[in-house]
């Protein structure tokens, strides 16, 4: 089968590949390609359109859209056009992004004691690299589609692929995570907690339960909230987008005291999957029988709307993906 994406090293001759040859992408296992991708260290070729592009956004460290600097500029000189300000901010974002890939960021994200050498050892373990191979291959393909459409500024489609990832991992991740605990009696408890409860709960509900009860009790996620900044050239658009999101979501998903009218929404980490699902359900349908679906006019421009959401959705999904890869493959 012809692969839709090919992976290319931006610099084949980096010193690091002399030291650890298997870190170079060459029929590498998909979980490694995913790690390279979500940390913004990959060049891809979309073979159908024969387009080569670089994914250099570190999804685990989403940049703030600089609202503050907008205001600063406006205060200093009111004559600058809002479009120009946004353009300048975009330019600044481009200038801030790194020019060279940096693989060292991967072990740093895994743990403070993990090194590139450890990563290289995992990659030479034949048993490990075949673990859940088919699953990771499909997952990687969805991520690649997300990178590609983000690169093309097709943010609506890019969001769709993030949603597909969420659906795809919603059953697998909880199971992989639970089954890699060190003690079976404990993994039984956590699995049981996932699948009991309401009858007929769908996979996405299982996933939410997983986030809420298993991921968020450890480390810092319990207290984490993820913020969506709403920045557009016109105050009226900001207001429309803000109102739309508030209107379709249950207000318990927000960290309400942190919301800023028409400019910022703060969503609890444990509710972020609900947020993604709600947005998807309300936007990708327009049945007459449901009255709170999103009208296209509500969100001004769908690619623009999703460009505001995607980096944070990608952050959430990458974070969970990293934790699961870490737990199920590296913690041996």
């Amino acid at each position, binding site marked *: 089968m012809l692969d839709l994406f090919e992976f290319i090293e931006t610099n084949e001759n980096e010193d690091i590949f002399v030291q650890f040859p298997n870190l170079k992408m060459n029929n590498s296992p998909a979980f490694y390609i995913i790690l390279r991708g979500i940390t913004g260290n990959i060049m891809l070729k979309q073979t159908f359109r024969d387009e080569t592009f670089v994914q250099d956004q570190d999804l685990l460290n989403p940049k703030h859209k600089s609202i503050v600097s907008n205001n600063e500029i406006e*205060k200093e000189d009111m004559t600058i056009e809002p479009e120009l300000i946004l353009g300048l901010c975009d330019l600044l974002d481009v200038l801030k992004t790194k020019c060279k890939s940096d693989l060292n960021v991967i072990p740093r994200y895994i743990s403070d*004691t993990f090194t590139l050498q450890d990563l290289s050892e995992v990659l030479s373990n034949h048993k490990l690299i075949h673990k859940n191979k088919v699953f990771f291959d499909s997952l990687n393909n969805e991520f690649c589609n997300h990178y590609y459409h983000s690169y093309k500024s097709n943010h609506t489609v890019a969001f769709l692929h993030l949603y597909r990832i969420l659906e795809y991992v919603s059953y697998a991740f909880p199971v992989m995570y639970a089954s890699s605990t060190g003690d079976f009696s*404990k993994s039984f408890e956590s699995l049981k907690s996932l699948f009991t409860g309401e009858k007929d709960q769908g996979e996405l509900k299982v996933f939410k339960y997983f986030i809420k009860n298993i991921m968020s009790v450890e480390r810092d996620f319990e207290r*984490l909230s993820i913020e969506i900044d709403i920045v557009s050239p016109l105050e009226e658009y900001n207001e429309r987008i803000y109102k739309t999101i508030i209107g379709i979501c249950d207000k318990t998903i927000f960290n309400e005291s942190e919301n800023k009218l028409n400019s910022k929404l703060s969503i609890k980490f444990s509710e972020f999957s609900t947020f993604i699902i709600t947005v998807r359900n309300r936007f990708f349908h327009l049945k007459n029988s449901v009255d709170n679906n999103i009208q296209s006019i509500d969100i001004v421009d769908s690619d623009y709307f999703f460009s505001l959401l995607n980096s944070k959705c990608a952050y959430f999904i990458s974070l969970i993906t990293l934790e699961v890869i870490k737990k199920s493959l590296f913690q041996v």
Partner: protein
Amino acid sequence: MNVFNIAYDEVISGTCGLGQTNYGYTLENIFPLVNKLEEQRKLLDTKFYKRLERDILSGCLMPPLTIAFVNNEAKITSVEDLQSYVAENIQHGFILDGIQRLSTLKRASEKPDFNFDKEIFFNIIIAQNKDRLLYRMITLNNGQKGMTPRHQIEILTRELFDFSDLTIKIQTEKEKSVDPIKNSFSLGDIARGYTAFFTNNVNNENSKIIDEKMDEIIVGRILDNDLTAYEIEFIDIIKFVDKHSGDDYILTWFQTVNNFIGFCVGYNNSHETLNNFSSNGLKSELEKFESAFKLLNPSKINLGKFRRELAKTFIKGIAKYSSYTIEELNEEFFELTTTE
């Protein structure tokens, strides 16, 4: 400065009062304290403060500033005590709130129309110890831009504590690169220990969470942690390390930052037991910890995290664990880490 009243704050175990002076005294005696914490905040130069500067020149009365002191010796029970304490110790004060306003005042004072006799009010806080003062700073500044809790802790570790009497040496990264002292502790590591002490938590770093969010998480932990229930101060931990620093094994153990972080959280619960240990006794306990930890053989991923967690648990329960054998301790460590 005239002081008008006095009251006791049960949370920070300190004496508080309200005072009044004029711009002239403020600029001469209180403004210099800003430089002491010059890094405390990047001075913001916004429209807001330009407006304030113009208002000062037109004779506005500023909202009260907050000045703090650390004192556990002098008895301050009356307004007169408080007034003379402030007068005598003004050069040891810390500005808890109002640095931006003071800088603005300074700028305004350079203009010709400035009135040095204009009144200004102060909140005065005299805290029993440095930890309580830092606690008040973090809770007071929370929500304001400019200074993060980690930054605050790092700066105050340097500003508040006098490490010069100690045998152990503490250097900043910068000092280390210019003139390294053998076996010195890094100030950054001490601050990480202090953060752990303050939050009662050994995990305050997470590369996957943006700094701003991580700071919120840390503030949340500090607010949830009841500092007033502590039986010890942070400086007691430093003194403990110093006391045993003659032993190379112990010194090296503490210089592994994850051990130190774990110790900072565990010590509060077992300071009485630990203070009875001789250096030899402590050394053999730490050796036992190391042997049991080695047997655990944690994965590369968990090395740092387990070390912090288990050092905390071990120190916290030292009274119990001192009777354990290496094997028993290892079994306990194994139990504690299998949920992972």
